[in-house]
């Protein structure tokens, strides 16, 4: 690789400045603000602000609503990750087996990724709308009465599908690339060694795909916990009865709708810690197993 040496001390900093500014203004500064607000309590009009120490955190730990939100988030994140990764792996394997028109399918399958989360939410909201949606109509034919506005399970299924759908394209691309980097001769050798297609997949392809799978797992969990706000907001708004009120939505709702800035900030600090911890654990323990 070519290395450029700057004799001028200022120029490298100038070149870095735009990126550093973005990181600082949009990430470090808000994060610091969140930490600051998490130990403060404001009155409803923002006139009085007091330092309250860890009282905001203590209140959260004793709040049944918050613990419920934590539980909902775990179910939601795991479901989204499994559904989107499972489905995209299936599609990737199918495309990898194709000889012709691979690129056509790949291109078409990437499209959902270009849809904004809020639009994706609305799309699924229409499809599953109990009054005008097509899915409830179909489900009604087989005897299931779909209503995500009253049923907690239906609501969870709806937000999981809407969130996973958007992530399928992304996962699919990485899985296709991962599959194509496995030498064909390995699968041929396994075929000669007497392994049928299913066996080959579980004995050879899937283990060799594990670095990709691991990477996507981290990305998907982080996506489900952080980036699904718009989907929730456009479909269920956390309801019914808190059934889909995931942590990131609760941060928004308590802060900007409930105007409880201190609690909202404390929640976002906890969320930040959870994601940092999850990622660290994944890299430390899971990555050891995928290295071969």
């Amino acid at each position, binding site marked *: 690789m070519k290395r450029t040496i700057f004799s001028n001390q200022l120029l490298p900093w100038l070149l870095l400045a735009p990126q550093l500014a973005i990181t600082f203004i949009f990430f470090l500064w808000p994060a610091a603000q969140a930490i600051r607000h998490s130990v403060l309590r404001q009155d409803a009009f923002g006139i009085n602000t007091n330092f309250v120490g860890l009282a905001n955190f203590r209140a959260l730990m004793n709040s049944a609503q918050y613990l419920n939100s934590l539980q909902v988030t775990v179910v939601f994140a795991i479901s989204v990750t499994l559904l989107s990764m499972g489905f995209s792996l299936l599609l990737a394997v199918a495309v990898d087996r194709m000889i012709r028109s691979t690129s056509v399918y790949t291109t078409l399958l990437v499209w959902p990724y270009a849809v904004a989360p809020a639009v994706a939410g609305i799309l699924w909201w229409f499809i599953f709308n109990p009054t005008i949606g097509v899915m409830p109509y179909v489900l009604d034919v087989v005897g299931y009465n779909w209503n995500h506005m009253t049923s907690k399970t239906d609501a969870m299924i709806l937000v999981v599908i809407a969130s996973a759908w958007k992530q399928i394209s992304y996962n699919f691309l990485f899985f296709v690339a991962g599959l194509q980097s496995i030498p064909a001769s*390995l699968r*041929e*050798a396994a075929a*000669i*060694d*007497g*392994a049928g297609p299913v066996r080959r997949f579980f*004995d050879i392809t899937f283990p*060799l795909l594990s670095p990709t799978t691991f990477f996507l797992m981290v990305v998907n969990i982080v996506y489900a916990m952080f980036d699904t706000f718009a989907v929730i907001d456009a479909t269920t708004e956390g309801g019914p009865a808190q059934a889909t009120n995931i942590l990131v939505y609760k941060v928004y709702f308590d802060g900007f709708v409930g105007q409880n800035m201190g609690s909202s900030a404390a929640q976002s600090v906890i969320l930040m810690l959870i994601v940092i911890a999850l990622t660290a654990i994944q890299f430390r323990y899971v990555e050891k197993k995928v290295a*071969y």
Partner: protein
Amino acid sequence: MASITLSNVGKVYAGGTRAIGDVNLEIADGEFIVLVGPSGCGKSTLLRMIAGLESITDGEVRIGDRVVNQVEPADRDIAMVFQNYALYPHMSVRQNLAYGLKNRRTPKAEIERRVAEAAEILQIGPYLDRKPRALSGGQRQRVAMGRAIVREPAAFLFDEPLSNLDAKLRVAMRLEIKQLQQRLGTTSIYVTHDQLEAMTLADRLVVLSAGRVEQIGTPLEVYRRPATAFVAGFIGSPAMNLIPARAVGHLPGTAHAGLVGIRPEDLTITPEGNIEMQVQAIEELGAQRLVHGLTGGETLTVTMPSDMPVSDMLRLSVRREALHLFEAESGRRIG
């Protein structure tokens, strides 16, 4: 153990391109056959057709008494050694060797016995619990062969197994493969582009060019009486001189030939020689040297002992029996 028969085997790709045309070959039980030719001649494709990794569009392939055209690779009772070894990177050497047996539901004790036996033969016992990435190129090569041996198949198929090794190791492994095959007596088909490897390993050679068989024969037959000008130029090192007959028209018997082939080692330097060569370049090989020059406007190469003095103009002679005569257009041998 089995014989392998190819009758009128051909392959046409979906786009209409012909890769292999009308190959007939009978391989006896225990024979070591080498498919040799330049890159793109279809030798690997032909091997993969026998293995079942490529479809056969014409003719039939028999292994033993069974036509295997429609048989899955796993059920053809063959084992293959790949150019990049194709070892399973996430399995230990032991698991790599056992995988094929495990899939065939071989009893555990039997698997252990065969793995131990193969490890003994190939001297890979100390590495059985390592992963392939912790092995050197030569060791990986042995493991790849081990995976073939444990299966005790009817035939071994080798797809350029030595081309990823360095020159010295290649020569050593070549000898080992030959000895191993003689010891096990398993029918083997070996693909290579290296004519030296082909000569040293083969019981019989199959020289291929552009998807067609040019000649089938023992290494010495092919070397001594190449059937076409292509074979003459391909087998033997340094390559045979192939000169248009008019450039050496004064040689006896060349009147009706289009091309005259003379091996560099068959040319001798004598004052009364009837071929005149103007020397252009010399390559020293140690024990001997290669002298390149022009005769009648055509390039010519001669080998000579390195202690013999070289002048600008050499006079060369060649025995009548050492001349290979070929037809101009078809390249077929005519004498």
